[in-house]
């Protein structure tokens, strides 16, 4: 497929539009058409609304999916929260006709229907499977030689593995391979597959707990000598970037590891400037990283 309905969600367009910009630019660079899903809402967030009322969570997700069904296009996302909701709702509705019927009874009241005709692909899958890392490698104008990157997968891209079906969750390789394809080095660090701390409503409900996760992750990445960290999820990105400002204020110690979204890193390797991929719009500094490019 060479076109996708881009499900924006909340954090990407409303807090980190640089992720949206870099993703649109990079995908278009590889001939993939990125279409707007007009009138889409919050996915709704799996850890908050899923924790409050799963039935509402599923129904609102079904409405969002129905927009892409009308467009006749598969969906792509740049947030693991959106992925968790939209991909899982699609899975649950496809596997259970009875639940699908009940959801459709509600969707009928707004003149919509969930059909089950499309797939939901995370941006990582598009880069890895549609475009392929080999193709990406051939297009690199500015290899990121000597750059040390700490990759953060984000929980909901990989898990639950029986629904996501991306293979091993204990030793994933997709993002490491991506970094290597761009000429950079992926550094191993302690608790690499650990959560960023933001999910499950914890960021909103108990910020101190969320930040303690983030602190551990950042310190482990810095200990491993990382020049930056990369994310494939807008919410993890938000937690690491905004979270480091919060940590610095809270603990009185500087937390300033540059946070780069995977399409921003790719854009740089394709020869775009750091402004082109809007790294300058991050809250945490990025100069220590961009000066090494």
């Amino acid at each position, binding site marked *: 497929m060479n076109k996708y309905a881009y499900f924006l969600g*909340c954090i990407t367009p409303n807090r980190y*539009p640089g992720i949206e910009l870099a993703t649109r630019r990079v995908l278009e660079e590889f001939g993939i058409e990125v279409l*707007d899903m007009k009138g*889409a809402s919050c996915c709704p967030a799996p850890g908050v609304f899923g*924790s409050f009322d799963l039935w509402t969570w599923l129904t609102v997700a079904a*409405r969002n999916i129905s927009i892409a069904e009308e467009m006749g296009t598969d969906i792509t996302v740049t947030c693991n929260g959106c992925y968790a909701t939209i991909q899982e709702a699609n899975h649950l509705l496809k596997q259970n006709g009875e639940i699908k019927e009940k959801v459709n009874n509600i969707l009928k009241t*707004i003149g919509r229907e969930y059909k089950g005709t499309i797939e939901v692909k995370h941006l990582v899958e598009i880069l890895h499977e549609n475009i392929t890392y080999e193709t990406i490698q051939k297009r690199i104008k500015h290899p990121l030689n000597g750059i040390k990157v700490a990759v953060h997968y984000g929980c909901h891209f990989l898990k639950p593995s029986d629904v996501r079906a991306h293979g091993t969750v204990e030793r994933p390789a997709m993002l490491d391979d991506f970094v290597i394809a761009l000429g950079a080095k992926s550094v191993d660090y302690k608790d690499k597959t650990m959560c960023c701390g933001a*999910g499950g409503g914890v960021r909103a*409900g108990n910020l101190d707990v969320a930040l303690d996760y983030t602190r551990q992750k950042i310190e482990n990445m810095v200990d491993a000598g990382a020049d930056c960290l990369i994310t494939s999820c807008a919410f993890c990105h938000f937690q690491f970037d905004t979270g480091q400002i919060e940590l610095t204020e809270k603990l009185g110690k500087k937390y300033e590891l540059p946070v780069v979204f995977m399409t921003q890193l790719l854009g740089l390797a394709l020869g775009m400037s750091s402004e082109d991929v809007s790294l300058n719009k991050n809250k945490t500094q990025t100069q220590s990283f961009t000066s090494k490019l």
Partner: protein
Amino acid sequence: MAPRAYVIRNVTFDFLNEAIENGSKVFPKEELERLRMCMQCGKCVGSCPSGRITAWRIRKIFRETQLGLKETVLSDDNLWNCTTCYTCQERCPRGIPTTDIVRIIRNLAVKYGYIKNNHRRICEIFLRYGHAVPINDEMKKVRKDLGLAEVPPTVHNYPKSLEEVLKLVEETGFKKIVERTTK
């Protein structure tokens, strides 16, 4: 003298059944039934990143659920310290969808009136904008500077779509849930 163990004499399956029933509105019931087989091995707690820094003990919640200690479970504030990372669900040797069950139990907590103020606020924001994290003036400017549409092509830019979403959440009863817990 060693302390005597506290004996729970009025064990009922009511709460366990309620959790499984409630969850099966969305998840496959046969998977949720596995909760009955939790043997307290502790692999979940051993895998839990939240358990390292908070008093959240998922295995304890499951045992209490099996024992029918509804109020104890639903009123436990630690229930909200799970980031839903799914590490325990991946590793559970009994195949219990542990993280999904945490969300199901939280649904019941909310249903019976236990919701954090910050979480209620997110619900209210969603009921107003259709986004949990809506656009603001600062971000409109950033979007414009980047050459993106100032307002994203979501419910933010399509009032009719927002009406659809609000109608939906009225139909599912979500509005009532939020209103009921607003005290």
